């Protein structure tokens, strides 16, 4: 097991190097004068030249790359012009909000998609199978920001069930003490149920928006892989041996069908991390996505580069975790590794 994790860790090294090179190129080589960006629109040529040498942009590229990697190793992603804070600190402060939203969306999507996919496969051709197909097609066609706005209109404006789409907590509620940074977890741990309810009512709509978006690939994959497993010999054998159908489906088929679904999660995370940006903008969610969007509007480039790099590294780590999880679930992978 350890050997497998080690081998898998080694394969992430080229990805991380690639990611760092691409983010470096995005800041330095491409058209557009980085120094002028950093100096702001009203800067004089002297000021730009000064910033140029201060940022080391007058050095040859390989030298710049070495100092870039050196700064990265120290966790230095530069300064944000709009907040005046180091980008690393800003991102660290806002990451829990994004993580909470993404995880809530993903858990919600899996809670709906897995049973739906399994039922669609077990009762192939029934209404639930058609429902599954509709969900899978609609999910990929709906622009995530549009779904979010529709939900806001229906559940905030028309029905009044949910609070205004303005962040993680309404102004009257107090933040829970920071333990994990996830409001839902922190408020439960500290026994503050009022804050928990306030945070929950704020997170429901954005989480549902993300869930609708990621429902399609999970449902589709669950159905397909469940169908494949149900046609396998060992399922036929289990049935012939007289096992109950809940035992056959729940234990024999489901566990095997989960393996391809877990692989799909990598792709789902790629979608989710992107969709997160749009959902955070719709719901004024104070996460890293809306931080990057604010920086984009202000032409503040260090935060955007920091955001892209952080998301990419996070994504590489998530893929690594998915592969390790795969090994935990499937002993065959462990043996090969």
């Amino acid at each position: 097991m350890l050997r497998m994790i080690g081998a898998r860790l080694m394969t992430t090294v080229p990805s991380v190097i690639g990611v760092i090179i691409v983010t470096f190129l995005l800041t330095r080589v491409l058209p557009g004068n980085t120094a002028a960006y950093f100096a702001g629109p009203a800067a004089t040529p002297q000021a730009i030249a000064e910033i140029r040498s201060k940022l080391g942009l007058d050095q040859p590229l390989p030298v710049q790359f070495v100092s870039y990697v050196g700064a990265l190793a120290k966790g230095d992603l530069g300064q944000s012009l709009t907040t005046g804070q180091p980008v690393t600190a800003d991102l660290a402060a806002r990451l829990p909000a994004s993580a909470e939203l993404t995880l809530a969306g993903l858990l919600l999507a899996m809670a709906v998609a897995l049973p739906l996919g399994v039922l669609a496969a077990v009762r192939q051709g029934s209404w639930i199978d058609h429902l599954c197909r509709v969900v899978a097609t609609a999910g990929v066609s709906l622009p995530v920001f549009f779904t979010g706005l529709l939900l806001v209109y229906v559940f905030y404006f028309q029905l009044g069930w949910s609070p205004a789409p303005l962040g993680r907590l309404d102004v009257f509620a107090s933040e829970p003490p920071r333990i994990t940074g996830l409001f839902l977890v922190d408020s439960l741990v500290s026994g503050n149920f009022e804050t928990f309810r306030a945070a929950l009512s704020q997170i429901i709509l954005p989480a549902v928006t993300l869930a609708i978006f990621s429902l399609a690939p999970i449902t589709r994959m669950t159905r397909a892989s469940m169908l494949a497993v149900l046609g396998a010999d060992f399922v036929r054998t289990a049935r012939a041996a007289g096992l109950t159908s809940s035992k056959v489906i729940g234990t024999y088929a489901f566990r095997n069908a989960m393996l391809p679904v877990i692989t799909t999660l990598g792709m789902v995370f790629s979608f989710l991390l992107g969709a997160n940006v749009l959902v955070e903008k719709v719901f004024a969610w104070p996460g890293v996505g809306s931080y990057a969007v604010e920086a984009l509007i202000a032409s503040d480039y260090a935060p955007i580069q920091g955001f892209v790099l952080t998301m990419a590294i996070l994504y590489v780590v998530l893929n690594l975790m998915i592969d390790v999880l795969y090994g935990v679930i499937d002993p065959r992978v462990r043996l090969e590794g």
Partner: protein
Amino acid sequence: MNDMTKADHVPAEVAPPLRFDAPPSTSLWAHARHIVSENPVTGLAFGLFALIVLAALFGPSLVPYDPLTSNTNAALQAPSAAHWFGTDQLGRDIFSRVVVATRLDFTIAIASVALVFLLGGLAGVSAGFYGGWVDKIVGRIADTIMAFPLFVLAMGIVAALGNSVTNIVIATAIINFPLYARVARAEANVRREAGFVQAARLSGNSDWRLLMTQIVPNIMPIMAVQMSLTMGYAILNAAGLSFIGLGVRPPTPEWGIMVAEGASFIVSGEWWIALFPGLALMIAVFCFNLLGDGVRDLVDPQRRN
């Protein structure tokens, strides 16, 4: 049914097109009619597609109002007989803006898909045909792009290249590159040693000629399927970028930016500003996804579901 395996699909048996059987144009047409009549959903998709193309071509000369002229007397009106989709905060007619926006959204999608078809297709075909270091380099580039969450990478590219529509096209093409390169690579790879390629090689054709006359024409149908399947994603991606304020600038009518403009009015109940451009976007994406399935049925009957 399953997009995941579609990209990795490698046909077991590869045969040159049987051109002597029947004139290909009539058989294709008959086949297309058969598919449309057999599957009404595909027919619907082709109909919607025709509508989108018409709106993109003639939209600006058909609409009842100028999409850019504001009229503050008629601001924020709900849909009515005069303004089918209502008016926005500046009194501009939303129906006219939605129709006129079709051209820009459609152009962005077509341009980015064409660009990635050229770049990704060529890179993938060379990788599959030559193998070796070409294959390694193309594979490495594709892996590096795939290491990013794709929308986030697109944001970073547009931010670095500069905020313009051209750069949205480029960013959308880059994030689709791995998909095209992989499909083209797999398809070229299985045909590399096929009998008809060997025969052409023995008759003294150069590598480049083999690629262009034997391999590329044979993988065109599969690439066409790939293109129509990614059109929807390209439109969604471009609209998402303009929703967060990249690329298209107001007052240009474009679906993503129109939804963004309408977003602040949703909480006060003016639903029509965001709803109609959002619906247009949704219908376009839906149409392209169905169309992709339809095109696949057309060119590759074995994979029908």
